[in-house]
């Protein structure tokens, strides 16, 4: 079946979505088109973001996302292991170009994401407010922080090597220096509660140094992740550098943790300790780097505030390899 050909299941689902959505959107429709308007809402199909494209899940599955009040919000693609595999392939393909770009250029691209997000901030604020149940002020603040975080990380792109690299004193006629290099393809799980700022705080430190990533968005609050994907898709980020999957991390992440072509894991968003341990064990099979912040287990599930603090270098340093070169001194 081609990507654009809806199956019977999808068609019937679209009808039921239409029925449920009537009540939510009736206010807006009546205000713009009058009480007897027959305009039908153009409902959005939320899809995955893989290799710069927005495909449906290979499996054809979707799941229901609810807003903060527990009311049906949208049907979201439910990624399968094959979507994850495709995403790894896309990320691997993108790696040479992205890691080979100059640090200055990567910084510009990250800044560009901030620019594009700024233009869509109203949409992001609405989605965070509806999804997280916070006030308009809080939502505005979270979006501002998320945008500023891109800018903050963008600034680091051409300074990382100076801060984390070194010129080493050695007892011999050599120049000896160490430089950080990107690890490769990183699979990450975004935080469950803080659906935008948390997601940005996971993606940005991975890609700023030249890694490419596959990120599982918050399972319960996936909508801002899709909007972020649309911002990234229009921000000069090469296809495959960022791949965003929606679905169940417990189903998909084990495939990524054991995937031999994934170089590192970021388990920032894994709250289930048993799952995190399983993923660590699977990652050990191919000696992956694993980042599992200690504070994940203890933090308040719904407080986005712990993402508001300045991130520090830890998340960037976790996905770097240090290359040390011994260069003979000339005579």
């Amino acid at each position, binding site marked *: 079946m081609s990507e654009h050909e809806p199956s019977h299941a999808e068609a019937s689902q679209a009808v039921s979505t239409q029925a449920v959505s009537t009540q939510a959107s009736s206010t807006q429709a009546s205000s713009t088109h009058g009480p007897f308007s027959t305009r039908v809402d153009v409902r959005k199909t939320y899809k995955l973001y893989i290799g710069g494209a927005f495909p449906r899940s290979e499996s054809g599955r979707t799941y229901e996302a609810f807003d903060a009040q527990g009311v049906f919000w949208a049907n979201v693609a439910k990624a399968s292991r094959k979507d994850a595999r495709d995403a*790894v392939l896309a990320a*691997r393909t993108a790696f040479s170009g992205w890691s080979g770009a100059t640090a200055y250029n990567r910084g510009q691209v990250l800044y560009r994401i901030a620019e594009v997000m700024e233009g869509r901030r109203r949409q992001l604020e609405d989605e965070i407010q509806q999804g997280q149940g916070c006030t308009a002020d809080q939502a505005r603040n979270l979006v501002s922080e998320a945008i500023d975080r891109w800018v903050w990380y963008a600034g680091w792109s051409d300074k990382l090597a100076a801060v984390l690299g070194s010129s080493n004193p050695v007892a011999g006629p050599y120049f000896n220096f160490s430089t950080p290099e990107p690890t490769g393809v990183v699979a990450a799980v975004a935080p469950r509660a803080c659906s935008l700022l948390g997601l940005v705080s996971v993606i940005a430190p991975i890609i700023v140094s030249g890694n490419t990533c596959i990120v599982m968005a918050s399972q319960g609050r996936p909508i801002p992740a899709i909007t972020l994907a649309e911002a990234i898709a229009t921000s000069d980020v090469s296809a495959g550098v960022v791949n965003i999957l929606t679905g169940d991390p417990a189903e998909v992440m084990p495939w990524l943790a*054991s*995937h*031999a*072509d994934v170089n590192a894991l970021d388990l920032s968003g894994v709250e289930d300790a048993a799952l995190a341990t399983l993923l660590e064990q699977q990652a050990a*099979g191919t000696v992956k780097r694993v980042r599992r912040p200690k504070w994940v287990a203890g933090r308040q599930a719904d407080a986005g505030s712990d993402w508001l603090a300045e991130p520090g270098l830890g998340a960037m340093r976790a996905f770097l390899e240090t290359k040390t070169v011994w260069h003979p001194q000339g005579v």
Partner: protein
Amino acid sequence: MTAISPKAIGAAASSADLRAFLHGLPGVDEVGAAGRAAMLGTRSIKAASKAWAIDLAISMVDLTTLEGMDTPGKVRAMCAKAMRPDPSDPTAPAVAAVCVYGDLVADARAVVGDSVHVAAVATAFPSGRASLEVKLLDTAQAVDAGADEIDMVIDRGAFLAGDYARVFEEITAVKAACGPAHLKVILETGELRTLDNVRRASWLAMLAGADFIKTSTGKVTPAATPPVTLVMLEAVRDFAASHGRRVGVKAAGGIRTSKDAIKYLVLVNETVGDGWLTPDLFRFGASTLLNDLLLQRQRMTTGHYSGPDYVTID
């Protein structure tokens, strides 16, 4: 299937005879061929069937390097891979053959011994633009150096100009020069333009004595496509019915993934039957396909996805 008996075509066939026969073949429904190939491509091959198909596909690969920059060292490395494609898993089958330029046949044969076939491209590959003397010498030298399969190209210029007798005579002459070596005739379907021409060229090659008909050199786009391979398989099936001789098919160029390879196997099974599901009668000409087959094989044996770091770089 035809009014004219193809058995009447002998070694001294004239262009007029051949033209009468080849143009008497029924035309190919291009839309129908594309549709059937696409339909067969949707078959789902999973689990045990997939594992079997992957091993079969590996054993059908003609591992190929046909570059101007080929060195004896590269050919030796490729030959080592051909004999044992997955060093981490001795149960992975060897490929069917290695395919190299004629001047590297001796290097290949020295490594592989009798364990896999050595195929050489000959007859002024890939363009085929040389005199018959040059082509025959090219062939004889490759056979002398140890090649037991010869991949020749037809003269597409002569074929398209309608000079069928010339193409026919070239194939018969090269076949004679091959001696005991198997002859694969490359039709270069990407330059034949129509599926009607593909059917005619297939019949022409088989009547002239080809042991295999091969889609492409890999130097022209499009190379092997499912509809083209379907038409060639149908020609092989009809030829076996009318002449009682089984001719093989080699799909070469552009087949890079296990998924594609399995689609071709389905095509073979559904067109000529499972009698052709053997390296003696169906081959893949490929260089990168083998790595993808190995990755899929590792995925099935280890239970987790593998990556390009775990197979050799070509």
